[in-house]
């Protein structure tokens, strides 16, 4: 999809001014974190499982070439096909070629972030093939012609009223007077319309949560069952996925699955965990006639061994965004590309460049909540700092903040001068701000005070306060 990440500030402002989005975000803030805590409370081994899950992925990344080759050999032995794709363009063309060969007119899709990353839908449409999203959230945003705003809850930015309006606008073949004010009426309408699409579709596309080297299987996790109908009722099952998804064994996948749903939705386990291996067997009564895996790199292999290596452990649970104060304030669309929230702030610059997405790693309060809830223990704040450093090195940050930092560095290298200036500033600002307790505007810091107030110092700097406390303590002793 076309990125608007460079417009993050404008996007964020629009999000904050959108009352419907703010209502939807309030729902999220109250929902996911509580459910996650309850689920973890039921599993005393949760933290030990996180450590193990992290170690498994670290082991895989160290030996990624081996595990990919081992996995590929098993896919082939089971009668499937692996298509290696360097970038989005290769991946889109590979999917199209399979659809063309099968003379596909419609494809049903289970939720896949990789399909979003390679912008598959517009490409298929431009080539005369109709893609139909079947996850309810993805279906809703497809008929609204919007990108997902969350990696596991794509329509989380919408209220029930928004969805009703979209259904009425899109499903014009149905009675305009039909009742749609209850959530289950919306669901039933989508279910019955999509049911016909499942049956009619020629090709089914899903993502993958895991690829298993031991068996050549792909694993998907859903709650609706749409990904299963997608792959079972069509002539061919195409898995669109990326290379860091491979794990050695079924047991390794199970360990990570134990932390996935609990971190994501707060369920102990998702409703459907489906392990797919090759096409249907000759004796099977149903299932797809062909099985293809479109394996995307798109810059990931180059992240190995860099300061962003750990990001490749991500299992896309969404816990970081569910707990992020910035995400909950601006909404997922503000991030401007496929991956929002803290994981997006780290991954997006890696995939589309820091020139385009440099704002994202800056959109953080560094509260550290994302790292503390990450089931794979990914040091997200540290990696956001790395992006800020790179941005600074490449002179992408604004001139004012560069001069400011330069001035600060000049003073910081001269401790006596630093203390003098710091003490003077604290005293002057403390006096000026005494009346209101803070400043709405500060000269030279308009960007900073534009979104918050600067609290007034209490009349002394850190060094003075430290010296005074020590004096007091000595006196007391």
């Amino acid at each position, binding site marked *: 999809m076309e990125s608007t990440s460079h417009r993050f500030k404008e996007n964020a402002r629009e999000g904050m001014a959108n009352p419907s989005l703010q209502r939807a975000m309030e729902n999220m803030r109250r929902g996911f974190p509580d459910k996650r805590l309850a689920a973890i409370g039921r599993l005393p081994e949760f933290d030990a499982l996180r450590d193990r899950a992290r170690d498994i992925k670290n082991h895989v990344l160290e030996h990624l070439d081996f595990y990919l080759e081992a996995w590929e050999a098993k896919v082939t032995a089971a009668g499937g096909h692996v298509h290696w794709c360097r970038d989005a363009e290769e991946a889109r063309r590979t999917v199209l070629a399979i659809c063309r060969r099968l003379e596909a007119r419609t494809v049903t899709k289970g939720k896949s972030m990789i399909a979003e990353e390679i912008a598959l839908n517009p490409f298929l449409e431009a080539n005369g093939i109709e893609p139909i999203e079947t996850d309810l959230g993805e279906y809703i945003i497809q008929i609204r012609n919007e990108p997902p705003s969350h990696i596991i809850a794509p329509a989380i930015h919408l209220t029930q009223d928004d969805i009703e309006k979209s259904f009425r606008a899109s499903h014009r073949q149905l009675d305009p007077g039909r009742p749609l004010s209850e959530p289950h009426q919306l669901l039933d309408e989508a279910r019955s319309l999509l049911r016909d699409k499942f049956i009619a579709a020629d090709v089914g596309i899903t993502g993958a949560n895991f690829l298993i080297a031991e068996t050549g*299987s792909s694993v998907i996790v859903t709650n609706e069952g749409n990904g299963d*109908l997608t792959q079972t009722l069509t002539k061919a099952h195409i898995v669109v996925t990326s290379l860091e998804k491979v794990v050695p064994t079924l047991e390794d996948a199970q360990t990570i699955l134990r932390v996935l749903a609990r971190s994501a939705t707060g369920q*102990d386990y998702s409703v459907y965990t489906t392990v797919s291996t090759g096409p249907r067997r000759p004796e099977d009564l149903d299932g797809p006639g062909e099985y293809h895996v479109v394996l995307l790199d798109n810059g990931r*292999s180059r992240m190995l061994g860099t300061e962003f290596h750990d990001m490749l452990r991500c299992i896309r649970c969404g816990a970081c965004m569910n707990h992020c104060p910035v995400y909950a304030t601006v909404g997922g669309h503000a991030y401007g590309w496929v991956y929002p929230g803290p994981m997006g702030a780290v991954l997006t610059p890696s995939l589309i460049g820091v020139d385009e997405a440099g704002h994202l790693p800056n959109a953080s309060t560094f509260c550290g909540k994302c790292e503390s809830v990450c089931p794979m223990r990914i040091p997200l704040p540290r990696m956001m700092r790395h992006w800020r450093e790179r941005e600074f090195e490449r002179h992408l940050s604004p001139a004012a903040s560069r001069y400011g930092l330069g001035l600060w560095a000049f003073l910081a290298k001269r401790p006596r001068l630093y203390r003098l200036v710091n003490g003077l500033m604290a005293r002057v600002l403390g006096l000026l701000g005494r009346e209101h307790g803070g400043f709405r505007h500060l000269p030279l810091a308009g960007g900073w005070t534009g979104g918050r107030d600067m609290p007034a110092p209490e009349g002394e700097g850190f060094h003075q306060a430290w010296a005074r406390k020590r004096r007091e303590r000595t006196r007391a002793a």
Partner: protein
Amino acid sequence: MSARDDILGSVRRSLRRDRLSDEAQAALQRRIRAHERNIVPQRGSGSGAEIAARFIDEAKSVAVTVQPVASDAEVPDAIVRYLAQHNLPARVAMAPSAALEQIPWASRPTLEVRRGAARPDDQVSVTPAFAGIAETGTLMLTSGAETPTTLNLLPYDHVVVMRTSQIVGSYEDAWDLLRQSRSRADGLIDMPRTVNFITGPSRTGDIEQKILMGAHGPRRLHIVLIEDA
């Protein structure tokens, strides 16, 4: 250069090494073949009676209904009662499985049983399960000539007929069972095309995070549990 070579080359360049030595690869192959368990939580273990009770509790907590029966002979009655209770027609699509053929369906001649894969208009399916997993009240179902996957997904009501002796503690226990029953000459597992782990009926939270049942898969999931252990 092929995309495959390019990508593998890029992986190795980033890891600052060549292709792994034969010994290193053999060691990793051994890790795969050993498929050792990692951490199995306490809730996935216990005596037979404990894990059976936990399986039932966990399944109920995700909106599964469970009907224990004492023998095969009671199964047709239990299913007819379930259908009547939900105002469903006395007609089911059933997996053509040996485990289900043992059941004396003829004892309830009013129950119409069609054997085969699911059709779009089927309202109720009856299938066996490969195993039940106590840890999270999860069913494990495998595809095959006797067990089409569509029966697990298309109908509104999915009725599973299984035995308490099929209940295991953890996912790893369930995989071990499958490895034993489908082990190939080379010692590796002969995977079915599809293994479904199903934990409750289909649901969605995509409308304001409100949980609604029956998103695409079954709206209700009912287990008739034959007590044989």
